């Protein structure tokens, strides 16, 4: 056996997802658990592709109301106003804070859409057993995992605005359904990224080499 050329999966070794301990798998074995931490053992995350798809599709569905419906309702003596994510960005831009407009645009519009597309690309490539650039795809996966949380930005902005401009006599701000949908998109894409198993990216290439 040549350590450094072969994967744990090819050797039939389970690598515990939680504590990284290796264990030999017995043929026909079911429900193996890690002898150190008791976590269930699998060669790959179970049903990784199907689960990633499930969360992704749910995220795509919520993505529409998240962008179309208002995330914030403002009412004041001067009238009522409903803000979507995009109109919030435009407002920041118009009021001269172009740098913040850019930050919110990246966190709330660019990152969630790019993340959905990137995850879709990764699952499709894994399903087709693509051998194209596993390193680049692994890097893409790392970026997706790293940036996902930053999309919560707009939810926090709405939350603080609601809290501050609540009992004011001049105006009230309330969170709209768009905020619920947007929060859902962020959570669902994070779950999709967690269910995706990056080792599947490398498997076809390794089989090819024999």
């Amino acid at each position, binding site marked *: *056996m040549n*350590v*450094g050329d072969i*994967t*744990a*999966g090819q*050797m039939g*070794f389970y*690598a515990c*997802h*939680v*504590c*990284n*301990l*290796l*264990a*030999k798998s017995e043929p026909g074995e079911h429900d193996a658990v890690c002898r*150190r*931490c*008791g*976590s269930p053992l699998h060669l790959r995350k179970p049903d990784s592709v199907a689960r990633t798809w499930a969360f992704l599709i749910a995220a795509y569905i919520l993505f529409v109301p998240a962008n179309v419906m208002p995330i914030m309702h403002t009412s004041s003596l001067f009238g009522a106003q409903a803000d979507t994510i995009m109109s919030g960005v435009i407002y*920041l831009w118009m*009021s001269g*804070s172009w740098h*913040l407009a850019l930050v919110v645009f990246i*966190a709330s519009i660019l990152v969630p859409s790019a993340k959905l597309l990137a995850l879709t690309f990764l699952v499709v490539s894994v399903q087709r057993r693509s051998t194209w650039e*596993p390193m680049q795809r*692994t890097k893409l*996966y790392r970026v997706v995992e790293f940036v996902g*949380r*930053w999309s*919560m*930005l*707009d*939810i*926090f*902005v*709405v*939350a*603080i*605005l*609601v*809290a*501050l*401009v*609540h*009992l*004011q*006599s*001049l105006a009230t701000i309330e*969170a709209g359904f768009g905020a*619920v949908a947007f*929060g*859902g998109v962020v959570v669902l894409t*994070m779950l999709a990224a*967690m269910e995706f198993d*990056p*080792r599947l990216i*490398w498997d076809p290439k*390794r089989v090819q080499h024999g």
Partner: protein
Amino acid sequence: MELSSLIACHECDLLQRRVPLAGGAVACCRCCHAVLYRDSPNGIDRTLAYTLGALFLFLIANLYPIVGLEVQGNRQVATLYGTVHALWNDGREEVASLVAFTTMVSPALEIILLAYLLIPLRFNRIAEGTIPVLRFLQTVKPWSMTEVFLLGVLVSLVKLEHLAHVETGIGLWAFAGLIPLLIAAAGAFSPDEIWNKVSRTS
């Protein structure tokens, strides 16, 4: 071959030999360069120090107002809890729960459980339930979003600046100090070291 002398990369599954590390070195996967494990000199002491500092600032960040707003003599301040409360009262329970979970519950669990693990380890004892706690810490970590929340506060300050007089509260500064401490704690923490301690004693 002894299985415990090997490690599989969690991102590409390549089997590699474990090598002893020293001086804060990091072991990376030969194939995909993922971090496999690292040596953290005085890791337990350092992580514990950062964690206790974070606990202190986290309490302040939760107890004191983060931002305040003044309109025609009316002052309104927002604490973290007040923010969640206002959303909940508006019938946005989902958003309120999400904010509470990512800014209060997850960071609190992260800080308290780390301290719970590390204080006994400091005296060479293993805390009861170390295994489920380590497992849980791994699950809760991605949902703790303190740094994103701070950026959210800054964006809302700018949005309100045009409408009213806004002032920053002590809570905001505590949040700003909390973030580098949490990053430092995560950087000094070596779960691999604790797992090895657990398997030696059991």
